């Protein structure tokens, strides 16, 4: 019998141990070969992957059983804070996906770093730390732990973004990304501490651990009942805004583009549902708490759909593979949030997982393309890769079809969601989703036709992908094909808070989604393959898209220009108004000096007189004050 608890702890701490070993090896005088870092990290990631699979099987086998353990880490003001694990269905699913991703990232990284020839040990240390922090976040048993590890993840993301610190753009982007991430973290911190304080007022209701996810429901109910509704809504709003900032949602969609300077394998991780989805995962965890304030779901819904639409429009115009991939990922995350806004919790999780897998596959394929074409990331200089990279082409088609929702894993959550919208009389919202589906198909097949069809437009001779990369592509493609099919029937029982039933499939909805996707495909086909239609250009929209819907400008304005301008104004106040007041004191000092100079005649009598005069004045003031005080008393 496996000690599942021990295994889970081992799984969590394996990356940390690996990072520690790599760090020690880095400071050993004898230089460690590059492949030693790779082998060590891969061995640990394989172990984590296997352990996470065992954990998932365990959770599936013992349906409804939640593995929980808490260890008091520290006490702040008599409030014990716990480091714990809470592996319910949701956490075990995310952890399994996470460990798979890190395993693949390890493999991709080796080839990538071999090409770039710098920072081998540093990269693997960061990677393992990121894995450790992500594990601790997804498996955390309480909100404080989640907060701590999301902050630590932000730090590692910053380190990755500044990996090439000699590059000025990398420096600038990493700074902006970290500031945005930390802003979200501080919002979460404020809301968490507020909840923590209110939880200490209710010792009889709240069990261990403090702010535990196992009793977030009771905490929510109690807080909602005992607090002013505005205060409660405000706390929830901070939580939602913090989570959405972490997930780079509208209007902070540019945040993800600040990570484009990260090494490719790390970028794949950042745009995966593991790191981009940290905020969304937190919203899943806090679902019972938010469920009491319906207005929060409206906020989530609006921000979700705005992100989905704006990002997919940007993706259909971009030429850089990284930008395209990040915008598609943001758009998919936006749809998952939009679904959550309707309180279709289980469908949202299912959608995020399915689309996330496809995005990770596509992102890794882009890394493989970049590796094969000498770090070329612009689709204008690619083409004709179908013959040279057949496996990559097939995998890309699988990922695209899944993301469009035509077949494979992506098909099931999309149909499920549209069905639920129709069944619950939200047909109007279907109109908002259909353009997103259409544009997703268009942008994905646009990339396909420009990258894999036609003739190669680059200068670098295309290299074949290595066996390791091909193996990891297959490893990633398998769940994209089968996960949705296997999981489809168990979504509502596996993930739902309440006993929900599958809505009756609506044939019409399925057809609508299919038609939207096919139209997107057909348009891309006509414009970029047969070239029978000239690409139409609407100047105002193009201008807005090229500026990413002013998201960059908005971020720069809020975090850079506005403080600088206000700072200049404040400085003028400091210099001329406050400085003026201080100048008055200098004038008084000069006046006294002048009087002193005038009254002094350099003889002892005048000195004596001056001293007596000042003593008399001081004594007079004190006496007046004394008698005044005496009268008052």
């Amino acid at each position, binding site marked *: 019998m496996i000690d599942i608890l021990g295994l889970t702890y081992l799984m969590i701490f394996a990356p940390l141990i690996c990072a520690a070993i790599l760090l020690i090896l880095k400071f050993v005088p004898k230089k460690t070969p590059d492949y030693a870092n790779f082998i060590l990290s891969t061995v640990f990631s394989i172990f984590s992957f296997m352990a996470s699979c065992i954990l998932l099987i365990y959770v599936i086998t013992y349906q409804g059983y939640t593995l929980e353990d808490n260890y008091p880490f*520290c*006490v*702040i*003001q*008599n409030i014990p804070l716990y480091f714990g694990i809470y592996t319910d269905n949701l956490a075990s699913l995310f952890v399994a996906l996470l460990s798979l991703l890190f395993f693949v990232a390890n493999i991709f990284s080796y080839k990538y770093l071999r090409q770039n020839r710098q920072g081998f040990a540093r990269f693997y240390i960061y990677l393992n730390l990121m894995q450790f922090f992500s594990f601790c976040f997804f498996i955390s048993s309480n909100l404080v732990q989640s*907060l*701590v590890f999301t*902050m*630590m993840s932000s*730090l590692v993301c910053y380190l990755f973004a*500044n990996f090439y*610190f*000699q590059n*000025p753009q990398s*420096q600038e982007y*990493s*700074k902006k990304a*970290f*500031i945005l991430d*930390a*802003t979200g973290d*501080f*919002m979460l*911190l*404020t809301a968490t*501490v*507020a909840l*923590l*304080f*209110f939880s200490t007022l209710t010792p009889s209701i709240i069990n261990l651990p403090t702010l535990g996810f196992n009793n977030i429901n009771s905490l929510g109910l109690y807080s909602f009942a005992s607090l*002013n509704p505005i*205060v409660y809504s*405000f706390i929830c709003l901070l939580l939602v805004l913090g989570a959405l900032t972490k997930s780079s949602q509208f209007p902070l969609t540019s945040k993800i583009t600040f990570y484009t300077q990260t090494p490719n394998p790390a970028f794949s991780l950042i745009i995966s549902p593991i790191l981009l989805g940290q905020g969304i995962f937190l919203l899943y965890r806090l679902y019972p708490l938010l469920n009491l304030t319906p207005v929060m779901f409206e906020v989530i819904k609006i921000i979700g759909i705005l992100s989905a639409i704006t990002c997919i429009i940007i993706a259909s115009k971009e030429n850089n593979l990284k930008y395209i991939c990040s915008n598609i990922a943001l758009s998919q995350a936006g749809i998952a949030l939009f679904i959550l806004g309707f309180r279709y919790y289980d469908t949202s999780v299912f959608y995020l997982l399915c689309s996330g897998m496809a995005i990770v596959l596509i992102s890794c394929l882009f890394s493989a393309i970049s590796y094969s074409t000498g770090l070329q990331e612009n689709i204008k200089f690619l083409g004709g890769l179908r013959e040279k990279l057949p496996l990559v082409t097939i995998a890309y088609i699988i990922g695209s079809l899944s993301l469009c929702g035509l077949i494979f894993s992506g098909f099931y959550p999309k149909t499920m969601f549209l069905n639920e919208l129709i069944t619950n009389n939200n047909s109007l919202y279907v109109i908002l989703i259909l353009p997103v589906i259409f544009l997703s198909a268009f942008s994905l097949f646009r990339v396909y036709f420009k990258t894999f069809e036609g003739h190669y437009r680059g200068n670098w001779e295309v290299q074949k992908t290595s066996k390791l990369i091909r193996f990891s592509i297959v490893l990633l493609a398998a769940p994209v094909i089968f996960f949705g099919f296997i999981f489809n029937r168990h979504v509502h029982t596996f993930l739902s808070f309440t006993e929900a039933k599958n809505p009756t499939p609506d044939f019409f909805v399925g057809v609508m989604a299919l038609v939207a996707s096919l139209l997107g495909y057909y348009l891309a086909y006509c414009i970029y393959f047969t070239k029978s239609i000239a690409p139409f250009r609407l100047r105002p929209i193009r201008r807005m898209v090229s500026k990413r819907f002013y998201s960059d400008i908005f971020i720069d304005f809020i*975090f850079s220009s506005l*403080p*600088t301008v*206000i*700072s*200049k104004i*404040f*400085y003028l106040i*400091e210099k001329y108004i*406050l*400085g003026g*007041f*201080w100048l008055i*004191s200098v004038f008084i*000092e000069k006046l006294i000096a002048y009087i002193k100079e005038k009254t002094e005649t350099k003889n002892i009598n005048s000195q004596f007189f001056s001293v007596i005069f000042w003593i008399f004045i001081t004594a007079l003031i*004190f006496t007046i*004050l*004394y008698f005044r*005080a005496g009268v*008052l*008393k």
Partner: protein
Amino acid sequence: MDNFLNIFAFTMLPLVAGLIIFFNFFKNNTIIIRRFSKYFSIFYFIYSILFVTNYNINSELQYISQIKNFTLGSDLLSVILCCLVSFVVLICFIVAKSTLGRNQNRFYSFALFFESSVMLVLCAQDFLTFFAALFFEIFCAYMLISNFTTLKAKESAKKYLCANSFFAFMLLGAFAFINTIFFKNSIPQEFINLPEASPYISSNIQFLAFLGLLLVAAIKIPVFPLHRPLLNTIQNSVAHTSCVFLSEFIIGFYILIKLNMYGLSEIFSLFAPWLGIIGIFNIIYFGILAIGQEELKKSFAYFCFSQSSIALVALASTSIDGICGAIYQIISQTLILLGLFLAFCFAIQYLKTSKLPFMGALATKTPKLAALTFMLTLAGAGLPLTSGFVGKFLCIMGGFSTQIYSQDTLWFCTIFTLFGFILGLIYLIKTFQNIFFGADECSGLKIHDLLRHRWTALLTITIFIVILGISPHYLGAMLSTYADMIISMFSI
């Protein structure tokens, strides 16, 4: 042990050590003077730790020592702050090795006098000792600033002396009345009797004394618009005189907690909401000013003021959590600011400029300094596992657990403190990136990485920050007992 832990000896030891150096006992041998000062500071720091560890947290006042009319004693807060000051002075002495050029005997003697005066201010229990120590402290600070900082410092030191003395004299006037009332009612003229004597003192006099104390604290913390003297001081400070402005912060907060809050609790409860609003204004005003400055030390000074105001907001909440948070924030902030200031001073020394646009790419030449500064930056930003996180965490908690504010003010507090954190983060990351990455401004310069003593100083600070971040409960438990005592004054 009780005989060994004598508060009179504790406060006078640096004075004696300073006098030994001042009267040329070591015959101008700079190496011996430096080593004597350093080892004395190490001993003194350990001695101050002994005071903390042996303190009975349930007693209101301990280690009382009376010689004629001078009463010294210490409560928990003063013992902890004494320990902190001795640490700051120790670090300053360590880094002085390579930054101090001339008049070593004068510097070390005045620094030790200054240390002694700060200890006296923190441990004074009667009015006379307090004012004597306060004026002595101002004088020592003046001497240090005017003689051992930059060449432009004379003017700023004079302003600093004038402003501090002016408010100290105002306070002296107010306390002269209180003293008289104490005398009339045969109450011993000690601070601890202030709450007990408050029924005999008219509210106007209490108000006058409160205002005087507040102004003295406000010029040291500092609070808008009284920040200019300290701003000039920080701008002209160098690594080895950082103990001056950090001790000023500490004394300012001590006066606010011990005398304003504990001694004149009735007036404080009236003032608390205003104090909170002033604190929030400070956080945002100085935070924004810090971002826009191009001069490194000036921007750092504004950042210091902004961060210290977080503790002011927490204090204004007048709750146990708030007071604990504020004290924790003061301790954490002192360590972080000390580390950052030293790092920035080293960077200025390496790059020979303090203008941010002309600084950059130092990380390539000094990786050790970059790594340690990054750690300190993260601590300043409030990353978990550092003392900065715990300080901020407790301050927000204090804001929520307020007993005076209405819920609307609670919102106000929370939202605007959040802005302070964000502004602090923007400043820190921007500055760190500017100095250590950015355009290559050190290509033609001969730069070596951190010298061993500098490395030791920064590493020690970082270790303390991490220890306080990982295990806040040791200090937290002590502080909550103290905060409980302060809060009990408000329920009278």
